[in-house]
Structure formats: C-alpha cells, structure tokens
C-alpha cells in the first residue's frame, strides 16, 4: 500500500483537555497495532469498555507481518473478524524447500481436513490492522484515540496507573486500573518505567522487498538455501493479497543497509531471481537486522506488556504478531474476571507464568532458525550442507533443516491454573493446550466445534447418545459461570448438543462416553476427566479462576 493510499483516522480532541479533574477508567490500551487492536476487540466482545491510545492516525507502513497462524485466526473468529481476513488473504499450507538449483522436499502444514481454519493465511499487516479497526468500531465499547502519544506512566498509591498523553492540542492525564502496553518494540511505556529488555542481536541483515507481480507463482512458501541467483545465502518467497509477493534476501553481515536498499541495487537482484520475462514493480524495500529479546517480567503491577513491547523475535517462524495475539488471548479474560470481582488478583500473575515460557519458546525457535540460515563457521556450514544433501533422500534429515518453525499455540504446561490428569490419556489436548477444532452438526446445520467455545468457561461433555447423561443434569448448577456443550455420537442436535457425525471430534479429543473437558475462556484446556463429578468440575473451575494462586490486589500489587 503506498503511503498515499493508507487510511487516515480522525483525531478528535479529547474531552479531558483543560479539565482539572483526572478521569479514571478500568482499562487503557496503549498502541493500536495488531495486538492492541485485538485486545480492544476481545474486551469489547466480553462486554467491557476500554480506551485505546495510539500516537499515529493510520495503519502500519512497510514490510511487516504477513503470516497469520491458525490459532490467531481462531482468536480472530472469536472477535468476529476472521472471515474478512481469511477472505482477503491468501491461504497456504504447502512449503517447498530448495538447495542450489534443486528442490529438496515439500511439506504440508495441515495434512488433515476438518478444521475451519488453515495452518496459515497470508495478509499484509496493514490490511489486518485496517480490518481490526473496522471491527473494533463495529463492536463499540472502545474509545479509540488517534494522535495520542503516551509519554509517561506513574504508579499511584492505590495501585492504579496514571498515563500522560500528548495530543496535537495539548497534554492530559488519564488514570487506569490496568494498562495494556501494546506500544511495540520501542515501547514508550517500558522506557518510561525503566524496565529491561534483554536478548540477542543478530549481525546478519536481510533485505525485505514487497513486489507486485502477476507471475503465476502458486500460493506456497518457497525457501532457497544457496540458490543460483543469490549464491551462498538464503531467500524466501511468500505470496500476499493483491498480487504482492514478499521476498527476503539474506545479506552479508557487512552489507551497508543504505546501499542495499537503493532501487539500482535491489532491481537487478530481483530480475535475476524472477527471470527476464516477469513484470514486477517494487512496493516497498527495507533492510532489517533482527533481535530476540524479552522483558524479565510482563506484569508490573497494573501494567501488562503484550506483543512486541514485551518480546521480539526474528520473523522466521512468524512468531512475532502471532505470539502477541496469544498474549492478549491469554490476558483479556483474566483481567475481565478480576475487574468484575469474579476472580482474585493473583489470577493475573498467571499471565507471566503462562506467557513467559511461551515467549521463550518463540525466541528459542526463531533463534535456531536464524542460526541455521546464517552459519557462523566452516563446520556449521558443512553440517548444514550435509543436512540439505541428505534431506533430498532421507526423511530424518528433513527434520534437521530449519527454514523457520512456524508458530503453533503454546501449551501452558507449568501453570497453576491447570488441574493435573487423574487418569491415563493416550491423546487429546492435554491440560494447558489449545482446543482442537472438528466439524460438527448443530441445529442450524454444519458447524465447527470451536465456534461453541470461547469467551466463557465451557464444559465439553462427550456422550454416545443424546439426550445427555444424568450427571449432566447436576452440572446445570454450574450454568452461571460455565457454558455446557455436549458432543454426541448419535441423535439430533439441540441448543446444548452438537453431533459428531463421523467421529472426528471424539477421535481428536480422545473421547469416549463420559469424557469431559473444562475449557477456559481462551479455549485452552483447564482440566479433563472420564465421568467427572460436579465436585471435580467445581474445583477445576476455581483453580482455573486463580483460587490456587497467591492473593494480592490489582490495586496493591507493587511494580
């Protein structure tokens, strides 16, 4: 998208300007990137109002995220924007890997049918942000304020945070019970609070070009090690919407970014890669070097860091934006419960317990991919060449070739919110894992299991026949806090029961008659059983709502 084509959102002078009294709101979100916008939409879907502040008045520019993972799309489904994003985006499941002038192998990321969403959809970040902004407006409840830069954060004696906000018409202050700092890798909130952001800087540089062309490249991810058109280095080609292609060229560490970015240097590279016939135009070029860093803790009293402000990774694996979306997936329901008094403040500490290991997993994976792409010694080049040579023929070596380990939802294994399995399980999502989709029939026709979950706690009860088993009646007592969904093998669907016509849901969930899963509002498994009692479910629900974690107070927790 050219700079001129970007939408501009209207700045409205805020009512607080010139008002001596400082307004207090429950939730303020700083930053309207993909992560802050998703948080606003999540809160709105939960019925909660927020103030969303962004220093700019438009969507992001240049070459940024393009690959949105299945889990992100499932979160987007929950906030009602996935159809639009998947509709505009390019679906791909297939990756192909080349070494020199040969194809080494191809892989399929979603080998089985029967999921609503594919492994990945590619769509330029600016389109995603644009659609999220529309959705946030549609949902209402978000007071979105453009050209509002947060410059200072102060923690008040009662535990709330006071933000200083700069606008074109002057400065005002805003108090919030909690703040989501979604203000990106250079987070002003993080700097204002003088918090650390440590990790590794990679020396290698990458030239990233977005190119418009009508060439007949299929919707696949192509990765080259040492191609004839870029000897000794790697290249990645990805398709986006509007006939735009993303091309990443690895550059030597010593490359001069300003030189490399010049069209007279970029165009010959592209010409060599694409061949003499192809018509193309450059949309955008940048030279990046990458870092992998994270904050030591993501929660600091009333301030919660989400997305790039909390952690940043190299883009190989598409774990940046997707990881950030999972942050808010994890955090918003917890804040909603705590703010409405339904859970203790300690529940919020589980954000660190759950999302720090997730960030570490993303950092580990993208560090290893980046290392594989940029061997640092003769021996590591030898091993890589050996792995690639063997990979053409032998399946074991394919596992060693690393061109990016693509984002999957993190499994919260060491969390105080999960109830440990009491029985032996030979499959199905374990406690801490994200729910698995399956096609089902409800009273309106074909539906998806995941559509029936999310936003609230859900008890998924598997039964051979409808109507459901007697135990189920006892569980009715949980209604105020838990949605009950039965999955039956046979019978007719009704308001509470869906039918699993071909046994896919039973198989994926390793279910038999009497199997039950308690799902959290973020669709992660809190507990699972064969024939639980109402007592089992109640205890697991309490645990998942933070009863087992230390008491504190959103207003008293220190920074």
């Amino acid at each position, binding site marked *: 998208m050219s700079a001129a084509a970007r939408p501009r959102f209207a700045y409205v002078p805020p009512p607080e300007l010139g008002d001596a009294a400082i307004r207090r709101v429950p939730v303020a979100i700083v930053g309207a990137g993909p992560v802050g916008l998703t948080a606003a939409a999540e809160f709105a879907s939960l019925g909660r109002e927020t103030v969303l502040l962004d220093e700019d008045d438009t969507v992001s520019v240049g070459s940024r995220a393009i690959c949105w993972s299945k889990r992100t799309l499932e979160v987007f489904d929950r906030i009602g924007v996935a159809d639009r994003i998947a509709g505009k985006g390019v679906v791909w499941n297939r990756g192909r890997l080349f070494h020199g002038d040969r194809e080494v192998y191809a892989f399929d990321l979603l080998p089985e049918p029967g999921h609503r969403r594919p492994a990945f959809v590619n769509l330029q970040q600016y389109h995603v942000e644009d659609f999220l902004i529309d959705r946030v407006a549609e949902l209402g409840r978000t007071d979105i304020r453009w050209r509002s830069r947060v410059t200072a954060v102060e923690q008040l004696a009662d535990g709330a945070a006071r933000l200083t906000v700069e606008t074109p018409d002057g400065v005002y202050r805003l108090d919030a019970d909690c703040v989501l700092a979604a203000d990106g890798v250079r987070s002003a909130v993080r700097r204002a609070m003088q918090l650390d952001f440590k990790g590794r800087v990679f020396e290698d540089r990458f030239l990233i070009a977005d190119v418009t062309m009508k060439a007949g490249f299929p919707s696949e991810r192509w990765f080259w090690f040492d191609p004839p058109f870029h000897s000794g280095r790697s290249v990645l080609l990805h398709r986006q919407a509007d006939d735009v292609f993303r091309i990443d060229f690895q550059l030597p560490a010593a490359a001069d970014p300003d030189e490399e970015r010049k069209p007279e240097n970029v165009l010959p590279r592209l010409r060599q890669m694409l061949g003499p016939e192809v018509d193309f135009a450059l949309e955008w070029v940048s030279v990046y070097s990458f870092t992998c860093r994270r904050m030591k803790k993501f929660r600091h009293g009333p301030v919660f860091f989400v997305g790039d402000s909390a952690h940043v990774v190299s883009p190989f694996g598409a774990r940046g934006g997707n990881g950030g979306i999972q942050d808010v997936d994890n955090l918003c329901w917890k804040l909603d419960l705590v703010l409405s008094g339904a859970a203790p403040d300690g529940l919020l500490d589980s954000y660190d317990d759950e999302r720090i290991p997730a960030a570490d997993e993303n950092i580990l994976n993208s560090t290893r991919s980046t290392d*594989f792409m940029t061997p640092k*010694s003769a*021996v590591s080049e030898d091993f890589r060449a050996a792995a690639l040579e063997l990979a053409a023929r*032998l399946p*074991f070596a394919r596992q*060693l070739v690393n061109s990016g380990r693509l984002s999957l939802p993190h499994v919260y294994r060491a969390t105080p919110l999960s109830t440990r399995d009491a029985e032996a399980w030979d499959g199905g999502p374990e406690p801490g894992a994200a729910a698995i989709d399956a096609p089902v029939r409800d009273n309106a026709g074909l539906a998806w299991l995941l559509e029936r979950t999310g936003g609230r706690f859900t008890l998924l009860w598997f039964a051979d026949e409808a109507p459901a088993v007697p135990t189920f009646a006892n569980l009715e007592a949980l209604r105020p806090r838990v949605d009950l969904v039965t999955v039956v093998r046979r019978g007719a669907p009704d308001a509470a029961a869906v039918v699993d016509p071909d046994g896919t849901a039973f198989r994926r969930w390793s279910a038999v008659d009497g199997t039950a899963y308690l799902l959290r509002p973020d669709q992660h498994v809190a507990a699972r059983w064969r024939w639980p009692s109402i007592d089992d479910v109640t205890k697991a629900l309490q645990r998942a709502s933070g009863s087992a974690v230390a008491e504190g107070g959103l207003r008293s927790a220190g920074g």
Partner: protein
Amino acid sequence: MADLITEPNLPDPDGFYDRLIRAHHGLDDAASRRMNARLVLLLANHIGDPEAIGQALAIARGEPGEASTRTP
C-alpha cells in the same frame, strides 16, 4: 543385523542440531575436524552393528545404490 534407521529417530531434532553446533563453538577448523572424527568413532562404537555402519558409510560417501537401506 539391522538396517540403518533413516526415518526420524531423534526426539528433539532442533535441540540436537543446536547442541551439535554449540559443541564446536570456539574451535578452529582443524580442531572441529578432529572433534567430528572423534564423534564418528564414538557413535560408530555405540551402534556396533557392521551392517548399519556399512550402510551409513555408503550413504555418506554418496556411492551408487546409496539410498537403499535394505539388507542385501
């Protein structure tokens, strides 16, 4: 006598690869080559089976019929 395993068999391939590369950190080329040689000898001794070792040698060397992992 067993066939050489060429299907995936490492529980954590990325972790293994990372360890392997890290183990060479700080070594110059000659020292790395010697380390690799020692490593081959150690792993060969662990495998023991001459059939499997023979197949591995042929594949690594890239000889005709190299991809076959069947016992003749």
